[in-house]
Structure formats: C-alpha cells, structure tokens
C-alpha cells in the first residue's frame, strides 16, 4: 500500500446529548483520494460525526484534524470542507448557476474564474442546459446533481455526503451510485459518505466504517466486512446471515473447531472465540447449496417456507430443529424448485462459515 | 461573532421592554402605595390609602364605611369579560368547524374575510355600533319602518350594548386559534366515532370538543384578558359612567386626578390577569396536549 496522506484524523471523539452517549471514544483515519463510508442503523451517530466534520456540531471531547491541522475551533465557513445535504438545501431564490457560484463568491474568486469553474461543474454533472433554472423546476435527481456541483466547485479538501441518495427512487439511485463513484475517481477528492443502506456502502466504498451503539464495530474494505465481519452486529447488519449457537471445542490460530446444534463439528475461521465457551457461527444463505449443489459439510433438512424472488428463491429449511435460510440462484429458466415439506440435502464449504463471539 | 449576537441581538428588545413596561409596572405598583398629591399626581409618601379606598370611604361621620361600588365595578368587569368569552367560544367553534370543512380556496377566502375586520381601527368598529344601536340608529329606524314599535329607549348605555361591542371587537381573536385547532382535526376520527355507534351530538361532545379544546382555551385567554381592560366599549357604548375597571382607571388619570387610586385599581387588574395566566400555565403543565 502506498503511504497516502491522511485527509482526516478523528481521535477519541465522544458526544453526549444529556445522558445519552451518541459516540463513545471513536477514532479512525481517512486517507486522501478515498471513498470512505460511515455505515450504520439510524441513531448510531454517523450523521452526528459527519456534522462534526462539517462544523455544525462539536464533540464533547476528542480531536479532529484535517490534513494535520486541528479544525474543531474553526466555524463551518472557515473549513475547507463542503457538504452535500440530505435535503440538498439548494437556495430556492437562486438559479442553478447562482447556487453553484455561491461558495466561489464567498471565497473571493474573480469573476472570470468563477464563470469558468461554474461552467465546468455544470458540464461535469450534465446539467449545463439547466443553468438558468430554479430548484423548484428541477426533478429530485437533477437537484441532487446541482447539490454535488455546488459542493465540489470550491475544490474542497474533503467532500461530505449526508445520505444524498435516500430521496431518490430505486433505478435513479443505482445510476447515481455509479456516477458518484466515477466522480470521486475523476476529481481525486476524498469523499466521506454517510448511509444506512448497506448495499450502497458495499457498492461504492473503498473502506467502510460500521458504527453501532456509538462505537466502531468494524473498519475495513467492503469485502472484509462482508466476508469476515468482526462481530455479530456487523454480520447481522450487512447482508443476511444465519446465526447458529455453537460450542467452541478448540482454537488454533485463526481457526476454531465448534460443535453445531445439528451435531457436526466444523472447523473454520474465527474471531474472538475461546475454547470451551459458547460462540456464534455465521453462515450466509448464498453459501449453502441444495441437493446437487450441496458440497462440504452436509446436513439433512425439510423445507418449511419458500419465497420466490425472480432471480433467487429463498428457502427456510428446518435442520434438526434449527431453521436455516438458504438462497438459491435460479440460474436456468424454470430452475428446479423445492416444495414446502420436501426433504432436502444441504451443504456448505467449511471455510464459508465464520465463528464470532457470542 | 455568533456568540455575541446571542446577547446583543436580544438586547434592544430587553431594553425597550424593560424601559417601557417592566420598570413602569414596578412604578405603578409603587405608586399604588403612595399618597394622593394635592394638585393631582402623587406624593412620595407611603400610604395604604389607595387600597383602602377600594373598599371603604369616609362617611358623614368621618368614619370608614364599607363602600361596595368599586367592588361592583370589578365584579361587573369580570362578569362581562366572562360572558363575552363564552359567547365568543360558542360562536367560533361552529363557524371555525364549518370553514375548516370547505375546499381550500373557499377556506382561504373565508379565513381572510374573518380576519379583515380586525385590521380596521377599533374606534371605527365601536363607533359603528353607536350608529346601529343609538337613538335614530339603524335598528330603531328599521323597527319603526316595519311598524313594530314607534320608538324605543336607547339600546345604548347599558351592559347589553357593551357586550355586543366587546364580542364584536374580540371575536376575530378567538376564531383564529380555534380554527387552527379544528383544522388539524382528522375527519377520520369523526367517522370512527360514528362507526362506533355515536351520533352527531355525542361525537361533538366526546370527540370534537375535547380535540378543539386547546384552541378554545388559547382563544379564551386572548379574549378574556383584553376584555378585563376594555376602555372604549364602556365609554362609548356604556355611557361613560364609571362602569368597568378599564375606564375607571382611565378617569383617575384624567379628570379624577387620583393617581395612586388609579394605580391601585391597575394593580388589581394586573393581579386578575396574572391569576388567569397562571391558571392556564398550570393546566398546560398538567396536561400534555399538543395544541
């Protein structure tokens, strides 16, 4: 890994609202040219953290630095950081052009430089022909792009995005995800993105910081977070998984042998397991094969529920008293499907599961 | 910067209010304990006389006699204010309900029409009632023209005329809060009530009235308090004899030239207002209604 500069350093940030502790000693670094996502359920503190970076809130204790300089004492208009607001907050009494130029005017840019930059921004977000329109004449997706252009125009050191896609409908959201990703790569500006939608996070981010109960639950790449979640919270929040209560028999480095409720002993990757203790086995539905796709650790079960979803069919299978969710891809037309009540054979590779702390 | 503005942004308001209201009120209270000045005004001498004067007067035998006339005035003021408030409440609820049910454009137009008279100077509005109720006034002329009577004693210069005037002056103040309350009323609640076997009367009593109550209470305060201090209606429609607390105070500072006594009555008036406001605050504290 190249030694990249640190765009933002968050150190021991704690935030209390009365007796409620929203953030508890959170520390992490964000590197230059990174698409960094703060992910978590509502109320986990991610928006609070973002607002602290922007300057609209301050921590109860802790420090925040922007490219090495502490910024907590600076008001928002003195920080070289810009925000794309969840509601977009486009000034309704100004045109698209005027909105984009607003920050540049306040920074004292000369007129020709402002015009050039505004035109460049409009091109970049494909909104050139709407330059003279007012926000109330634009659609949701168009407003979002103007908000982006307005925030990027002043060449900030970091761009903050507060759930910018939440107001858009599905198709538009997916299109915007690609656009945002491309934009970040093109401009090379560090993006700090806040969302509660884990699909979005997995799709766009270089690294994800999963927040829960005011603390960092896991900080890593999308792949790490999905495949090797640090704990139950993360495994549960990201994607779907089956949790099996297991008994740890032995631990050997980063592998552990556990006894499942179905009786088998499985050896797989582990985090925070101790021999002789109870733990949780996390097994994702797509990693369990049915019938002829069942390989590795084999189990017998009976289908109790079936949800046809078009591209996938989700089954609930009762295996010796434990209910497992299994996801089968309908790879060929009119794939084989299993009716409720049918006995099926299930199998998963032993390294597909993960042992997590109880 | 921002921190400073928090202080000096509020400063002008505090200074002006302090200078023109808070300090003066303090002075009024002080003056109410002062002695009557020889040439009007007052002397800085501590005296309980103004308050004594509310209840007693020096009789023929140079002894203090109980004098109920001022108590009558205070009681009459409370009585009229209460009646005015009740009438306003009774009228505004059905009217507000009706207006709230209209389609948007009609509703806006009606609300506009309701508030419009409020913008016309009160003196003009009270004067208008003089024209209607007075001798040779509109009502008398109309009654005579239809042959019902051949002339009536003036409808003016009594409690009834004052009542009409006061209701008229303060009704717009009541309508708006009541309307705000009624508009928020979810029509589905009324339907649910009927669905559960209540008729219109029961629904009114057990669903609409309780939900409109916050608005009614807010409006009641807006009407009751100014009514207590009414000056124009008693003077113009009531004949100007010392009929209500408002113009009683007024005359002490005009022809009567008994400032401490006027101040004492003003303090009593303030006391009544405070009682009303505190009663309201206590009620609000007890309930957790969303107004």
């Amino acid at each position, binding site marked *: 890994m190249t030694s990249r500069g640190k765009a933002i350093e968050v150190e021991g940030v704690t935030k209390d609202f009365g007796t409620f502790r929203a953030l508890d000693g959170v520390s992490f670094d964000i590197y230059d040219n990174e698409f960094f996502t703060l992910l978590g359920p509502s109320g986990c503190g991610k928006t609070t953290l973002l607002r602290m970076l922007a300057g*609209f809130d301050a921590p109860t204790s802790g420090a925040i630095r922007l490219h090495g300089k502490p910024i907590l004492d600076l008001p928002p208009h003195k920080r070289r950081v810009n925000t794309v607001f969840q509601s977009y907050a486009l000034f309704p009494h100004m045109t698209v052009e005027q909105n984009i130029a607003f920050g540049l005017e306040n920074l004292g840019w000369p007129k020709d430089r402002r015009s050039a930059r505004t035109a460049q921004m409009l091109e970049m977000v494909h909104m050139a022909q709407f330059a003279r329109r007012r926000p109330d004449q634009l659609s949701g997706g168009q407003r979002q792009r103007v908000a982006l252009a307005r925030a990027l125009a002043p060449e900030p050191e970091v761009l903050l995005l507060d759930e910018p896609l939440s107001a858009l409908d599905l198709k538009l959201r997916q299109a915007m995800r690609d656009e945002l990703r491309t934009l970040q790569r093109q401009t090379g500006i560090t993006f700090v993105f806040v969302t509660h939608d884990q699909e979005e996070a997995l799709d766009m981010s270089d690294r994800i910081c999963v927040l829960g109960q005011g603390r960092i639950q896991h900080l890593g790449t999308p792949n790490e977070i999905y495949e090797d979640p640090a704990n139950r919270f993360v495994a549960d929040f990201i994607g779907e998984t089956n949790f099996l209560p297991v008994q740890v028999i032995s631990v050997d480095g980063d592998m552990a042998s556990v006894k499942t409720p179905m009786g088998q002993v499985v050896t797989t990757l582990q985090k925070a397991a101790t021999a002789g203790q109870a733990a949780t086995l996390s097994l994702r539905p797509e990693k369990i094969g049915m019938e002829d796709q069942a390989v590795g650790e084999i189990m017998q079960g009976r289908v109790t529920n079936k949800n046809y979803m078009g591209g996938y069919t989700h089954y609930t299978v009762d295996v010796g008293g434990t209910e497992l969710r299994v996801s089968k891809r309908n790879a060929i037309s009119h794939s084989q499907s299993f009716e409720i009540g049918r006995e099926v054979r299930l199998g998963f590779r032993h390294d597909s599961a993960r042992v997590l702390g109880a | 910067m921002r921190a400073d503005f928090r202080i000096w942004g509020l400063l002008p308001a505090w200074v002006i209010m302090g200078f023109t209201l808070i300090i003066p009120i303090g002075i009024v209270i002080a003056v109410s304990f002062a002695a009557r000045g020889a040439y009007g005004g007052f002397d800085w001498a501590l005296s309980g006389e103004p308050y004594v004067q509310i209840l007693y007067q020096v009789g023929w035998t140079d002894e203090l006699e109980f004098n109920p006339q001022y108590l009558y005035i205070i009681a009459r003021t409370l009585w009229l204010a209460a009646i005015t408030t009740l009438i306003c409440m009774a009228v505004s609820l*059905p009217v507000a309900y009706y207006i709230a049910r209209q389609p948007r454009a009609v509703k806006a137009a009606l609300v506009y029409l309701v*508030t419009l008279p409020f*913008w016309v100077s009160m003196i003009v509005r009270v*004067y208008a009632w003089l*024209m209607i109720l007075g001798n040779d006034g509109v009502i008398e002329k109309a009654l005579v023209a239809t042959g019902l009577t051949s002339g009536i004693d003036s409808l003016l210069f009594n409690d009834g005329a004052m009542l009409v005037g006061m209701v008229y002056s303060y009704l717009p103040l009541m309508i708006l809060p009541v309307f705000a309350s009624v508009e928020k009323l979810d029509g589905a609640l009324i339907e649910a009530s009927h669905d559960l076997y209540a008729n219109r009367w029961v629904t009114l009593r057990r669903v609409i009235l309780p939900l409109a109550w916050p608005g009614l209470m807010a409006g009641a305060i807006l009407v009751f308090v*100014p009514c207590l201090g009414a*000056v124009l209606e008693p003077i113009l429609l009531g004949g100007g004899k010392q009929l209500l607390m408002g113009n009683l105070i007024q005359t002490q500072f005009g022809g009567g030239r008994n400032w401490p006594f006027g101040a004492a009555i003003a303090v009593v008036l303030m006391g009544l207002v405070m009682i009303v406001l505190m009663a309201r605050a206590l009620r609000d504290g007890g309930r957790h209604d969303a107004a």
Partner: protein
Amino acid sequence: MTRHDVRHYPGLGLLTAAFFAYLYLPIAVVVFFSFNENRLVSVWTGFSLKWYDSALSNRALLDAVKTSLTLAVIAMVLSTTVALMAALVLVRAKGVKGRRISETVVNLPLLLPEIVSAVAVLILFSQLGLTNGLAKLVLAHTAFCIPFAFLPIRARLQGMAPDYEEAAQDLYATPWVTFRRVTLPLILPGVFAGAMLAFVMSMDDFITSNMLASGGNTTLPVYIFGLIKQGTTPELNAISTLIIVASLIIATTALVLTFRRRIP
C-alpha cells in the same frame, strides 16, 4: 347525501352566514351612510360625496393623520428591526440561556391589558420629566408593536429548515453574508407581514395614545374619539370609511405576502 356524510353538521352554513353578516354589518352601515346626503345620519336623502370633501379639507383631521402616519412609520421600522433581531436569536441560536423568559418579555405587551401599560408609561414619563410628545409616543408605540412584528417573523423562520443557512456557511459565507443573501430573502414575506401588522397596530391604537396625548400630538383615533363625543356625524362616517378602505388594502397586502411562496 348528508345522511352519510357524518362530518356534516346541519345548520352550520346558516350560522356562518349570520356570523359574517354580524361581522360586516357595522362596517357596511358606516360605509353606506357616509354617502348620505342628509346631515342626519340615519335618514337617507340621497347620494353625496360632500362629506368626503369636508373631511379631506379638515385641517385638524389632516394634522391628526399626519401625526399618526409619522408615528406609525417610525414605530414600524423600529419595532420590526428589534423583532427581527430577537427572532433570529430565539429561533436559531443554540443554547440560549433564558430563552423562555426572553420570549415572554418580547411578547409582554400581549399579556397586559393596554390600560395598565398605558398608565405605567404615563407615570414613568411624568417622573422622568419627559415632555417631548412625539418621543413619548414613539417609545410607547414601538414597545407594543414589537410582539406584533415578532410573531409573523418567528413563524416564517420556524418554517424554514436550518439547512439553507448551514449550506451557506458550508460554502464559506460569514454569518452576515448568510443573513443577507440567504436568510433575509427567504423570510422577507414574514418581515413585511410583521411590519405591516406593526404599522396597523400603531395607527389603530387608542388607549395609549389617548393617555399620552398632549397639545400637538393628537393621533387619528384620539381625534376621532373627540368627534364621537360630540355626536355622530356623516363626516365621521366618511373618515371612518376612508380608514376602512386603507386598512383593507394593508390587510390584503399583508395576508397575500404571508401566504405566497412557502419555503420548500
């Protein structure tokens, strides 16, 4: 159909119509008889504008109008400015100590019967030896106009999400630039409505103006009161009608301003 429309209560329409009749009857009467040719107010003898003529050439009346207008304009400007500053602090600033009590203080004139505050100010000014009639009136009027300017401004500010001001600050606008280029344009209708309300309250005021009245400072309502005590005259009707018309124009402007263009 009304058997099924359970939200409908019979008779309300009629009641409302009667209500509006009651509301507008006095105004209609005043206006109607202002055009009466006859000197006797209630006997109609013909249409005439002569009372308007006499009203508009009445020296004393015009002086009173001038006094009222001057006073109202000054009070409007001062009270709206003070109210605007107070509203900005009370609605937007975080962690303001004694916010509740400050709001009560700003709205104090609404909580006191006017006769009490009029008397209080009279005593204060006489003790201070303040004799300048206009100064006394300006001070008193500004004070009771403040809550009337405050309420519409506050309502408009509360209806405006703080997002816009935050976005402006995010884009390097200082607090002053934020106020000038973002906050003020967006709350302007509320400010105008407040100013207009303050103007009307000052123009209409009787009790305080009467209490503080001295030689050359008769306001319009006080002057009219003097006329009324002499008996009803058609000239009075004409003056009143003019006032009604002026009030309606201002009221309409203010209401239109308040309801147009909600902030998204």
